[in-house]
């Protein structure tokens, strides 16, 4: 304890980024050549190809004209396969967790951490490098899928995408990357916290399961208790809906699905009960697409929330890592 406090007071020497890119390059090389990565890639490419092929088939037969035809590739579904975005919301956390759950504790167990730190590399750079390498790998995979979807769309639909479609889907790609980033930072935190990789993996999966399955129900129940509808008034229902939405937004899954909806459905103007009430309001022109800037503003809190959550979770794992004793 005393040593740590002293270290805090000591004047720093050198940049914490020294050796960062070396770590990033090594880690990425590990990821990309690993068998784990191969399995994940095959899984995600197969789902992407399958869902988008079905979506394109669906669009070819049903949709005559749509200003945002390429966005429909991501959202259109055809039985028995769900839409591509649905798969992404499900698969991206799994990939992120699978890539990072043993980043730090794996090194501990293999007793390689002290050997790495014996090199002229700071701890900061090591953790930053590991996280950035994971994020870059995820970006690489997702970008490849994005390109695959657009290529298949071009081949199957035979029309070029419009500028706004490309812009919207690029924002969607960015949101997907940071959605993965949240789970990656969480898995990193657990891999720093728990010495056993299995425990870290289980903890990450548990959090993911909790948000996927239970949090929606819990938020609904909490909202009903906190803001009960006593007289059946519209205001009460609205208030309850607002509280329930605010609670579910603690889950990155909700944040990501709302960002996706706003970006891929340009005519979406509001979420939940407010959006439904909008249809009843006088003077509202429904179905008119919002400009991209307005769609972004609609989900800007969710979007920035995803990024901030990624950064904060990383900060937590950084602090935790810095405070650990590393002895081989």
């Amino acid at each position: 304890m005393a040593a740590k406090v002293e270290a805090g007071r000591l004047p720093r020497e050198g940049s914490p980024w020294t050796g960062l890119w070396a770590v990033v390059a090594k880690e990425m090389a590990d990821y990309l050549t690993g068998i784990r990565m191969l399995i994940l890639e095959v899984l995600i490419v197969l789902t992407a190809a399958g869902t988008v092929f079905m979506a394109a088939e669906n669009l070819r037969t049903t949709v005559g004209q749509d200003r945002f035809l390429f966005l429909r590739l991501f959202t259109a579904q055809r039985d028995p396969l769900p839409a591509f975005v649905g798969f992404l919301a499900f698969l991206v956390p799994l990939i992120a967790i699978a890539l990072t759950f043993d980043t730090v504790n794996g090194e501990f167990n293999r007793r390689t951490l002290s050997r790495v730190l014996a090199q002229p590399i700071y701890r900061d750079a090591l953790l930053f490098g590991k996280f950035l390498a994971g994020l870059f790998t995820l970006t690489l995979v997702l970008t490849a899928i994005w390109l695959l979807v657009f290529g298949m769309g071009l081949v199957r639909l035979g029309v070029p995408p419009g500028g706004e479609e490309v812009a919207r889907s690029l924002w969607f790609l960015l949101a997907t990357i940071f959605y993965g980033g949240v789970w990656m930072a969480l898995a990193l935190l657990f891999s720093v916290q728990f010495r056993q990789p299995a425990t870290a993996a289980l903890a990450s999966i548990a959090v993911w399961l909790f948000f996927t399955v239970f949090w929606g129900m819990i938020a609904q129940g909490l909202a009903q208790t906190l803001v009960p509808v006593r007289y059946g008034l519209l205001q009460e229902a609205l208030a309850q809906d607002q509280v329930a939405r605010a609670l579910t937004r603690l889950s990155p899954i909700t944040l990501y699905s709302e960002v996706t909806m706003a970006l891929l459905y340009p005519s979406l103007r509001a979420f939940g009960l407010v959006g439904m009430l909008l249809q009843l309001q006088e003077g509202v022109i429904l179905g008119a697409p919002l400009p991209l800037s307005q769609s972004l503003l609609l989900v800007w809190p969710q979007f920035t929330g995803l990024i901030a959550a990624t950064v904060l979770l990383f900060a937590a794992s950084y602090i935790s890592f810095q405070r650990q004793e590393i002895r081989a």
Partner: protein
Amino acid sequence: MRRNWAVLFLLVSLIVLAGPFPVRAQEGQSLLLFCDYPARVAELGETVTFNLTLRLTAAPPQTVYLDVKGLPEDWDVSFRGGGNVVRAVYVEPDKDASVSLRVVVPENVSGDTYRWTVIARGEGVSAEFPLELTVAAKLPPRLTLSVDLPTLRGAATTTFRYDATLKNEGDEETTVNLQATAPQGFLVSFKYLGQDVTSLPVGANESKRISIEARAYTQVPAGTYPIEVVAVGGESQASISLVAEVTGQPDLTIRTPDERLSTQVYTGRETPIQLLVQNNGSAPALNVELSASPPSGWSVRFAPERIPEIPAGQQVEITMHIKPADKAVAGDYMLTVRARPQDGGYESAEFRITVLTSTLWGVAGIALIAIAVLVVAWAVMRFGRR
């Protein structure tokens, strides 16, 4: 004896030679020619058939030639028998032979009584019979045009519809051309049975109801406009004077200086929009009141709220201040703006208002990320190990 033979030869040759010579009418031989209705009346161009009967008394059966005398050259006259054109009839004694005389009255003769004689000439007998045909001259077409209500009153946008009766008092069908002379700015059309017509056939002694429609195709000023309608059929013509009294009325339109009926506003922020209220009518619009029906929670006000007078053909500029509700959802809204003059119907224009949310929250989001990054920076400062 030789002399006797010579006399006999002379007698025989006399008898033989005398054969072809017309035999003199002998006492009691007669040919009778008569007609059942010898004096007839016909119209121009009509075909008249006279039934003639030939009767031979105390004479051998013979061929009787027929002829007509006393008719002008250009008349088409023919004898008919058994469906064919004939020149002669074979008549047996004490038996009537029928033949008909067909006369076609030419179109161009004057109305008069024409007399001629049919001559029947047989062998030694002949007969004549006078026939008479009175040709009634047709009345030339004479048109009359009458209207129940020759003076109509209405706004500049109304269609003035006059119900007219066109009558042909002549005995001949005629094609009537209808023409109208109207002041500039008026379009006159004729309708018969719902169809647009400019000429129509009217039978002899027939009358047809036509409707004369006059429509102003530009905004004509208030006033009295005479319309002359002429119906010409052949030589005859009829005319009538109609009057359209146009009363003035204001006609407002709402537009913007750049003709765009869409605009963008930010939530909770008041945005002014320039409007032009134009009076395209023929009378000034008085006390024009402006109103709008915005979505709930919005405020729309006009400066000025009321325009005392917009003269005809003039426009007035006003400012509309739109303030969407503070929590208005971004997107497109419909806003109906109405201008109602003191007397007369209102005019409305629909605006498409795109509500944009303020980028203030965007800045807040960036600040959130910045705080997160600052936390990392602080952690690096605080816990970094060099």
